[in-house]
């Protein structure tokens, strides 16, 4: 009888999480979208990088002002040395320039600003598998620019990417390296600096990952420079080439951040409640004190409101005065025209009457002589004038004005009419003048009242500053009392991540979802991780004897990563051994990692190490020598490995690193 084998397709990550959290796949997808969780299922494939040359030049300033040029070229996999007989001969600067160009930015406490400003040109050549690359920078004064060049092996380099500031340089090189090594930026949670700081999510880019290639003089972490916020763990996992590492990193960071926020919020609530109760008691005591003090003071009698009313009354009177003034002006303007007519008509009537009278007088008189020749007028001439109505002097016809009466009547009527209009208008002006005077008087009186009131108000306000201040204090305290009397919500018992409206509606507990996500993610690489770590532990034990750590009987590197050590019959750990041992363990751990990854054909470490030896008094020279001797031996099993070591020279080092693989500043000489 054959047994039917039923195969079920493997669950996707979302389905796995949904199953664990007992929710729908859609809810998992919403969660991923909301918190921007990266999903990275791919396994890392190793890419090998080795440095082929470092060149930099410029002009020194200060004690020495010479031009300088440093060249260390035609490098290949293997061990390379930067040696000097004395300290402070420029070894560390060479390593810092390499770090600067490789990371894209100057390391904290690394290349000094002064020294950096001396460099006018710097170029770092390296090979990534079969491609040649060179990162170059030029800086002259404030001008800064640079580029990444590339070409297939053996061909001339050509510009690939350019940058024109240090910020651009950092971004350009970071993108380039992350892309080359298929590394993703990953996040971790950084705890707050004090209990009321909820901490924050930190995104680590290329400079943090690149730290795994540079072993300096700080041995805080077994991988990288800093033992913070799970960073060494993530670096280890990334370089082991484990899948889902950025996903796990993001979820862990989210978990840390949410927990931090909840804890801080509860602390805030507790403390705030306590503070509020105390403050409420203080406020009530102050209120009682100020209220009783206010009762002893007399309330002000004058008010700004009343003053404003008086000013409004004055403004109305001002407007009325303006209107009255305009009415008077109008009347005066009209009066000008009427007066002109009145005078014209009066003159016309007066002239007519005078002329008429004068003519009558002169006509009653007989002429006595000619005014020209003064000859006497004869009686005959006078008779003729009477009978024939011709002038006794010039003999012309004499005409009497027949319409004189009519003209007089007309002129008289006209003059009377304009006379009446003139006097009426004059009276109107008088009336309006009086009205204007009254309005002006009223306006002045109201102004006087308003200004007097204002003076009294000001005087009273000065006196009642205390009263008003107390009044304002009481009003303010009453508002505060009301606010502080309201209670705060109770502290949150369990971490409750902030839910969006959409998720909140269906009642999904994001904490459950988050925990399920972490579990599902870790399940997808845990097995491989444990397997790889086992391999790394075995490799490290194998290397220990070669670098003078034969007393170690067992090493156990876990995923944290912490390194448990058994030696001389006792248990210890990485953090408790000597600096010389730490240095060797750091190097061994990295090389073991590279070696295991090489064997399994996975991992993302580029395969080179740059080691700056510590000062002689901190690390025993013998330890360093043991390390180098051991590495020389290891190199044969790791042909792609490149190590560049800077150190004070000694026979062992010079023996293991031959002249073609080193630059050596003898005696008092400088490397550059």
């Amino acid at each position, binding site marked *: 009888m054959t047994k039917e084998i039923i195969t079920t397709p493997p669950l996707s990550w979302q389905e796995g999480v949904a199953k664990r959290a007992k929710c729908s796949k859609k809810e998992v997808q919403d969660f991923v979208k909301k918190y921007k969780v990266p999903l990275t299922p791919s396994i890392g494939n190793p890419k090998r990088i080795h440095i082929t040359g470092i060149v930099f030049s410029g002009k020194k300033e200060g004690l020495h002002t010479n031009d300088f040029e440093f060249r260390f070229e035609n490098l290949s996999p293997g061990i390379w040395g930067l040696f000097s007989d004395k300290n402070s001969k420029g070894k560390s600067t060479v390593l810092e320039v390499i770090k600067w160009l490789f990371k894209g930015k100057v390391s904290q406490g690394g290349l000094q600003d002064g020294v950096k400003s001396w460099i006018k040109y710097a170029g770092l050549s390296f090979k990534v598998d079969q491609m040649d690359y060179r990162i170059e920078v030029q800086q002259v004064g404030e001008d800064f620019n640079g580029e990444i060049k590339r070409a297939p092996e053996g061909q001339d380099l050509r510009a690939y990417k350019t940058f024109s500031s240090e910020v651009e340089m950092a971004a350009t090189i970071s993108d380039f390296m992350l892309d080359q090594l298929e590394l993703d930026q990953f996040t971790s949670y950084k705890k707050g600096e004090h209990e009321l700081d909820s901490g924050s999510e930190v995104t680590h880019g290329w400079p943090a990952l690149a730290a795994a290639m540079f072993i300096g003089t700080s041995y805080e972490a077994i991988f990288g420079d800093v033992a913070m916020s799970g960073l060494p763990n993530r670096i280890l996992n990334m370089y082991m080439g484990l899948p889902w590492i950025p996903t796990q990193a993001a979820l862990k960071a989210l978990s840390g951040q949410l927990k931090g926020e909840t804890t801080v919020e509860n602390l805030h609530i507790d403390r705030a409640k306590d503070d509020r109760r105390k403050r409420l008691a203080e406020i009530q005591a102050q209120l009682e004190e100020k209220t009783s003090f206010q009762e002893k003071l007399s309330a002000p009698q004058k008010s700004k409101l009343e003053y404003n009313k008086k000013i409004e009354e004055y403004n109305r009177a001002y407007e009325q005065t303006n209107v009255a003034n305009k009415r008077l002006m109008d009347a005066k303007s009209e009066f000008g025209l009427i007066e002109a007519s009145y005078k014209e008509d009066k003159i016309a009537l007066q002239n007519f009457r005078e*002329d008429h*009278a004068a003519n009558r*007088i002169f006509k009653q008189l007989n002429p006595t002589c000619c005014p020209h020749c003064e000859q006497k007028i004869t009686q005959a001439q006078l008779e003729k004038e009477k009978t024939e109505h011709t002038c006794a002097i010039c003999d012309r016809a004499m005409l009497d004005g027949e319409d004189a009466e009519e003209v007089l009547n007309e002129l008289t009527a006209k003059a009377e009419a304009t006379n009446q209009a003139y006097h009426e208008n004059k009276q109107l002006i008088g009336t309006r003048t009086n009205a204007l005077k009254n309005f002006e008087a009223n306006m002045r009186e109201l102004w006087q009242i308003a200004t007097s009131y204002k003076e009294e108000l000001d005087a009273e306000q000065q006196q009642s500053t205390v009263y008003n201040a107390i009044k304002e204090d009481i009003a303010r305290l009453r508002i505060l009392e009301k606010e502080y009397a309201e209670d705060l919500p109770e502290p949150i018992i369990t971490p409750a991540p902030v839910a969006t409206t959409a998720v909140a509606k269906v009642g999904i507990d994001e904490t459950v979802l988050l925990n399920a996500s972490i579990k599902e993610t870790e399940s997808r690489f845990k097995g491989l991780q444990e397997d790889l770590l086992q391999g790394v532990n075995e490799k490290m034990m194998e290397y220990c004897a070669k670098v003078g750590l034969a007393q170690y009987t067992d090493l156990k590197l876990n995923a944290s990563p912490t390194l448990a050590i058994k030696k001389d019959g006792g248990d210890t750990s990485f953090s408790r051994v000597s600096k010389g041992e730490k240095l060797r363990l750091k190097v061994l751990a990295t090389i073991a990692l590279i070696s295991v990854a090489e064997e399994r054909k996975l991992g993302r470490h580029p395969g080179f190490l740059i080691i700056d030896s510590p000062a002689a008094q901190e690390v025993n020279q013998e330890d360093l020598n043991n390390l180098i001797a051991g590495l020389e031996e290891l190199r044969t099993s790791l042909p792609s490995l490149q190590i560049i070591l800077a150190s004070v020279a000694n026979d062992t080092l010079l023996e293991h690193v031959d002249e073609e693989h080193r630059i050596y500043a003898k005696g008092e000489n400088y490397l550059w």
Partner: protein
Amino acid sequence: MAQTSTAQDAIRLLFIFVRGCEPLGENPFDYAGCFEGKTKLHAMDFWVRYPDYLAYQLLNKYETENEEGYLTKAREILRSEEPDIRSIPMIRYRYGAYDNINEPLSILLSKGLIVTDGEKSNGKIINYEFYVTKRAKELVESIAIEFPILKWFDDRAKLVTEIAGKLGGQALKEIQYQHMTYAKTSLGTLIPSIKTEVTSRLIKIIANHD
């Protein structure tokens, strides 16, 4: 300003001649008086035709002689709007205010009211003497009764005669030239009114007076 007829001008001059002449004693032609010179005639005619300048001179007289009557007269002239109603324009000529008086004078001559004579040169009178006949004097006396409309000229001629006093034509011109508006008037143009100025002056004087 008013524009008057030849008859009006003749009547005005008649009053000036009669009230402004020097009485004569017994004489062969039985003339009532003699008015000497055209300059004096024009000067007195100017004060009759420009009540504002007359008021100004009355105020001068009031301020120098402290005679209340002059102030009263000046106030009446301005109050009755004479500068607007009674002004008859004259132009400023080489010897002061001037108007051609030939036409009104010919009326007075033909009617036997005025007889002209004087110092002659080449058959022409160069310094005029205007003789006022008894007929003229009698006529003037009757006009005030028969034609009250013309009484104003009689009163004004009497007042101007009083203001002019015994001064000759040249002296009167000099007094009138003392006013800047008169003196600054361009030759051949109308002499402007000083009503506003004299009104202000009167107001100040009255204010100080009260």
